């Protein structure tokens, strides 16, 4: 319990750090992008938009830095992220809400799949040490994990989308289709997700296999595994219930932490496939200099990662008694 409470404290601290980073970054930059930005938008946008910019950059308001900071924190706590400049006058929260489900569906499912498949291959490779799988998988996966995600996506578009024309490669669904809970629409969404999901899967699976294999190799050398074998337990029981169960623990936190990296990688996958998720929106916000939207998306991604880590911590506390006893 104390462990979980401490992790919750860490959650809040990190969240505060991310918000503070959001606040200070534009103010710290050389050449003061705030002033430049205000000058650029003045006259072109309405008074309310200008006010949004003022809260973000603090330029022109005449407020002191500390009082700006307090204002900013207050706004964030009450869920007021300002108004999107590009989708004006829609509030940022509403704009983001439309994109988040696409990313959750695509990246969430793909990440879980990569973790399960990768870990499985890792367990088998370590169990059959020196076997065919152990000979082929690690070196191959070392190389695939070094390929840029987005380039794999581009190659998939080239081969399966443009050349073979097997699958659609742009957007989340066909424009001619109307979003509804019909079979044709769901099938369409699924079809559009296949290529980006495969591109993500191929580039992320390697890390799981390699770390799981290496953890497993160390665990298999432990005495309790030898003991289990000596007792004459069935091999697959030794492999899964004795060795793998312990070898997977360090990977649980790693799994949650990598969500940040996967969401990061998915930004480019979404960009390449024009997939209407959070990452694609983030890059559009950057391109349109829609800073309120950009800041909100950065916070949203951070919160998503933090929640995942907190969940993984709780899971670790349940599965690993050592974390509970060592306070």
């Amino acid at each position, binding site marked *: 319990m104390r462990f979980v409470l401490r992790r919750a404290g860490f959650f809040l601290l*990190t969240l505060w750090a991310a918000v503070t980073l959001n606040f200070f*970054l534009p103010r710290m930059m050389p050449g003061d992008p705030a002033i430049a930005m205000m000058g650029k938008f003045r006259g072109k946008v309405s008074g309310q938009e200008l006010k949004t910019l003022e809260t973000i950059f603090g330029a022109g308001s005449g407020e002191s830095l500390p009082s700006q900071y307090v204002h900013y924190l207050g706004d964030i706590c009450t869920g007021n992220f300002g108004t999107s400049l590009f989708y004006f006058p829609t509030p940022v929260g509403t704009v983001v809400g439309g994109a988040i489900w696409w990313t959750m569906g695509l990246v969430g499912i793909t990440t879980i799949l990569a973790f399960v498949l990768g870990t499985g291959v890792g367990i088998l490779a370590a169990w059959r040490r*020196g076997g065919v799988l152990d000979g082929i998988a*690690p070196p191959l996966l*070392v*190389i695939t994990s070094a390929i*840029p995600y987005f380039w794999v996506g581009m190659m998939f578009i080239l081969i399966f989308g443009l050349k073979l024309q097997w699958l659609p490669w742009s957007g989340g669904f066909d424009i001619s289709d109307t979003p509804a809970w019909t079979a044709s629409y769901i099938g369409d969404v699924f079809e559009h997700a296949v290529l980006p999901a495969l591109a993500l899967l191929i580039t992320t699976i390697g890390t799981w296999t390699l770390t799981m294999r290496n953890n497993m190799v160390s665990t298999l050398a432990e005495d309790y595994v030898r003991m289990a074998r000596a007792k004459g337990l069935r091999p697959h029981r030794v492999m899964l219930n004795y060795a793998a169960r312990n070898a997977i623990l360090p990977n649980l936190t790693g799994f949650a932490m990598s969500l940040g990296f996967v969401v*990061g990688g998915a930004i480019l996958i979404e960009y390449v496939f024009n997939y209407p998720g959070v990452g694609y929106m983030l890059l559009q916000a950057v391109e349109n200099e829609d800073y309120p939207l950009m800041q909100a998306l*950065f916070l949203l991604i951070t919160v998503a990662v933090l929640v995942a880590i907190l969940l993984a911590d709780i899971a670790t506390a349940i599965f690993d008694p050592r974390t509970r006893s060592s306070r």
Partner: protein
Amino acid sequence: MTTLSAGGTTPHAPRGSAGGTPPHTPRGFGRMGRALADSRKATLGAILLAVFIVFALFPGLFAHDSPTAEAYDRNLGPSGAHLFGTTGLGQDIFAQAIYGTREVLEIAFGAGLASTLIAAVIGVAAAYLGGFWDGALNLFTDVVLVIPLFPLLIVISAYVHNSGTGVMIAVLTFTGWSYTARQLRSQALSVRARDFLAAARVRGERASYIIAVEILPTMISLLVAAFLVNALYDVLFASSLQFIGLGDPNSVAWGTMLYWAQNNEALQTGYYLQAIVPGAAIALLGAAFALLNYAFDEIGNPALRPVRARRRFGLRLRRPAHA
């Protein structure tokens, strides 16, 4: 004067015996070198990396065209004169790929070395100083570690606008040290209780000396492995930022080539090589770092070595004993 030096001999005596580290290090290097030569992964990775370094140092030897001159017809296919064809602006793609090696390697080595160094200082200082400093540095490391890196890079780059090589290195260093720091801290914690450190403390060495001269050399293979991972991610991140147009669009770099290929709709219009060549180059350089890193992991943790290679290694060790 004489008394001083006479008095100096006694504290020198334990230094000699505690100096188990200095004679240890060259032997460690020798063993590392042999293990590296034995690993096929390391050999392949080293050859790839060496080739890229030669490209970066002497691009003119391999490519005879200027990478920036818009001197030829646009979107030419591959031919004897243009091995990989030309870009949408009429630049030679082969020349761009060769000249582009330099910027990528500058970023990989610059940011990779800098972030590994920061990580080593913070991680080892936390472990060695312990107490309040360990708590504070560790918390700081963990906070930086969980803030999602790539989105943060995008946000920073968006404010900076068209970041060149120097800014890119600074941003990647500033954001990329935390994972290594955590790794090195736990390694340093395991070294902390060893006798040679107690000896150094007893003879009154300063903490900074002990960290730099006594602890860091014991972690060389770990440091190298960490550098290789950092360099790999720096290559991938820098190229990604350039690809989405957050780098300097006029630079000669692989990520920038991909940016122009995307702008030119190279895939849709059939000029595949504009997208394939720079991406393959990134993948090859990334593979070089990844293979070397994997080999170093196996050296640091012998249990991970492939079963066959270990047997071969054993035979080689036995031979001089029989002779």
